[in-house]
């Protein structure tokens, strides 16, 4: 039996699925659920949405009659009309609790529309069956499998084409900037990125997934998809468990790329040298202020593992900050918690509960907090700055800032230093 959660920050499987789907250009989610489900989705992600996102999500908003007698015909009608109102290349039906409990035959409705030539697929996502964090792999696999049925052309592998998996849209406030930074890095190294989420993404790119010469997987989610694609299309992959910030991240990515593409080794090494130079050049501008203003603070980092762990390592290893503790806010099984705690040298806590997190921060009494809008109360109480690194981040405008790569790493240090200096 799952525990209750106070001041919850993480959404359900349905909301996570909508968050991921709406980040793909040309994909139109159709929510089959009661009113209110999709309307709350935007509060697990950043309030600044991609254009047109605001309350445009197609939703059946099922009512009592459809709960009692079944909502399949309502869904049929909604699918039939969605393909006429909303521009899209792929329509994905995702189902909420009510529709799943009453047992609507969602697959049959989708199949019916597909048989009439409409590109419609469905993914089962009842809220009580999972976490928003479970949505990324479920949706990615769902689309890949769904498109396979809809496309006829033969695969033709292009060696330099690369897919990136594991940077989850709208489950990380900096996902879009991070992805763009990685795409740029790949291009600079002579590869071709295949954007699957955010700016530049398209359904066509999803059809090209099987033609990639290499998959780059970040986090456990990325690894799951990469393994699946290895089995399915025999696409090789490289795995970067933790997306390091700053120059270290760039090094790891480029070195791993060089190890599987020996013919590009020279080019990649030259690029790496250039990146190191650039990073050091700008970092040196920070040195006088860093020393004169004593930018060495005790920090508590709050966020899901895939954000908080690399941020904490970067702050201590590359910026000399004192990480008092990391509070992980995503769902982790007990054995995973042990593994994570063993690997990380900082003190770690796990909680999704905003109240307990607040209490922990109070007890740790750091000089700066890195977390979400829900840590604002603790920051105010302790009179310390709060820097947003995890969701929700309502009130912060985050358009395409990144934490990754040379530019992202420097921007992060800039923001961190300014936060510290403003308070002093």
């Amino acid at each position, binding site marked *: 039996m799952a525990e209750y959660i106070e001041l919850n920050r993480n959404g359900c499987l349905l909301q996570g699925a909508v968050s991921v789907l709406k980040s793909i250009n040309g994909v139109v989610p159709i929510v089959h659920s009661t*009113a209110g489900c999709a309307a709350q989705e935007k509060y697990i992600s950043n309030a600044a949405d991609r254009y047109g996102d*605001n309350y445009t999500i*197609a939703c059946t*908003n099922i*009512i009592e009659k459809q709960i009692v007698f079944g909502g399949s015909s309502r869904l049929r009608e909604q699918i039939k009309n969605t393909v006429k*109102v909303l*521009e899209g290349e792929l329509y994905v039906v995702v189902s909420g609790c*009510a529709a799943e*409990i009453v047992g609507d035959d969602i697959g049959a409705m989708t199949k019916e529309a597909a048989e009439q030539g409409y590109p419609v697929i469905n993914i089962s996502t009842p809220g009580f069956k999972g976490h928003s964090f479970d949505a990324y792999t479920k949706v990615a696999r769902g689309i890949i499998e769904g498109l396979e049925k809809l496309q006829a052309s033969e695969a033709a592998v292009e060696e330099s084409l690369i897919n990136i998996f594991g940077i989850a849209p709208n489950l990380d406030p900096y996902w879009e900037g991070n992805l763009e930074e990685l795409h740029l890095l790949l291009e600079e190294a002579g590869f071709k990125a295949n954007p699957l989420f955010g700016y530049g993404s398209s359904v066509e790119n999803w059809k090209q997934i099987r033609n990639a010469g290499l998959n780059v997987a970040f986090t456990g989610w990325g690894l799951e998809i990469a393994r699946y694609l290895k089995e399915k299309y025999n696409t090789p992959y490289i795995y970067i468990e933790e997306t390091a910030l700053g120059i270290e991240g760039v090094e790891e990515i480029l070195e791993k790329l060089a190890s599987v593409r020996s013919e590009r080794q020279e080019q990649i090494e030259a690029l790496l040298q250039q990146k190191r130079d650039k990073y050091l050049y700008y970092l040196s501008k920070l040195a006088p202020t860093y020393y004169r203003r004593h930018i060495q603070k005790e920090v508590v980092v709050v966020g899901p593992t895939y954000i908080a762990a690399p941020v904490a390592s970067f702050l201590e290893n590359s910026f000399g900050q004192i990480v008092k503790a990391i509070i992980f806010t995503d769902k982790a099984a007990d054995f995973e918690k042990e593994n994570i705690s063993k690997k990380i040298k900082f003190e770690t806590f796990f909680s999704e509960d905003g109240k307990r997190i607040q209490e922990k921060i109070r007890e740790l009494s750091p000089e700066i907090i890195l977390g979400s809008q829900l840590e604002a109360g603790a920051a105010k109480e302790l009179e310390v700055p709060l820097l947003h690194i995890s969701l929700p981040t309502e009130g912060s405008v985050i358009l395409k800032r990144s934490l990754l790569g040379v530019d992202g790493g420097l921007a992060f240090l800039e923001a961190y230093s300014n936060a510290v200096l403003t308070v002093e």
Partner: protein
Amino acid sequence: MAVLRGKAPIIREKRLSAIGAYYGTVEALLREFYDGNLKQRIRTFSQETNSDILYALQAINSIENVVIIIHGPRGCGIIQNHYNNRNSLATQWAVTNIDEEDSILGSDVKLRKTVKSIYTENQPEIIFILTTSVVAINNDDVASVAQDLTDELGIPIVPIYTDGFKSKIGITGYDTAIHSIVKHLLPNRAEKENFINVISLNENKEGIEELKRLLEALGVEANVFPGFSKYQDLAKAGSAAFNLVVKKGEGDYFAKVLKEVYQTPEIEANAPVGVKATGKWLAQIGKQLGREQQAKELIEKESQHAVKALERYKVDRIKVYLSCEPEYANSLIGLLEELNAEVVGIKVPYLDITLLDQMEKLYRKNPELSLLIGEGQPYEQINILRKSGAEVYVGNDQAVGSIALEGIPVLDIRDINILGYKGSISFAEKFYRLVKYRGFSENFNAAPKPPVYQTGWLKKNTNWYIKQEVK
């Protein structure tokens, strides 16, 4: 207290002939109402919209020292983070986090555990339990948990039976919350005292401050609730001499129930938006309370200043599309007209018989005015905007982001105060800035690629997907 029998009030569609989908003229709709031939319409294509749960939350989430428990799966109620952020609240809330096992085996044990633990840790004065679709469909027992724990813990554990599907009109959630508040928090009898109740469901802090300021200037003691109130404010509601509802359609059920239980009469006064309407509002209250002279003096003093201020914010003739709560429609049109704007169309989230007066007024002014009824549904809104020639959008609409893409500047009134003299002036100022300085909105005059809506749809009649409900 016959009115409080039952777990929740009868839904608005049945009780008040509420409708949530319509497109046409004000005249045609009024005719349906009066001919007793009001058609219940539904959308055969719809976009996301708010449920009763989200409204019920708004009705209770600014009461001090309470904890709200959302009894449902983990994603339910997550919008409370946003409400806390928007209103600078630190309201404690929790979700029981119903998982697959609970949804099969029942969740009342879990609810009991949650309530007890929340009580021990937070020591609130009231615990609200909001139910969700999963709990409603499975028919989990919430009533006996609430009753048992009220007895055991000695504080009111108040169940609010929202479900997300019984009504198509989300605002029904206000009634559901009000029903439970009166039933569980108010005493059966009360001695009359010399203050009035001001019933506010979702006005922001600034708005309430302005109303309090005006009432104080009139020498009226106001007990404002449930918005930004305390348990004791709610508990003494039965003692008021009069009820005053800020927005009639939202708080009507509260006034009705209080009238039935405590025979409290109601002051009928339309929402004070704009100089004229604020004057009328004060005059009406003054008349009811025998303070005509004070009201007259106050109106004179305040409106002079306000009229002068508004003079500065007049714009060149401009076409505006307005989306607002039905109670604001006439007053906002009046205020916009004073600023030299012409309203070319209006959208309200719902309508019911409590708002017929407002509609009649609208009809007398402009029987042909195009009226859209719906909440969210930007696909209809964009379809209309393309045809209406509107140059500016003023509204409380959730579809603001979509409208901005049309290159139309938007005066979003969701988080600002437009009530009273102060509210009117600040509304006018923001409107003026928006009309005069359009640098931001002009970026969007190029259509987004790829487009969100299909050309075929944008050319169609706006009520293409609105059909009559088959009973």
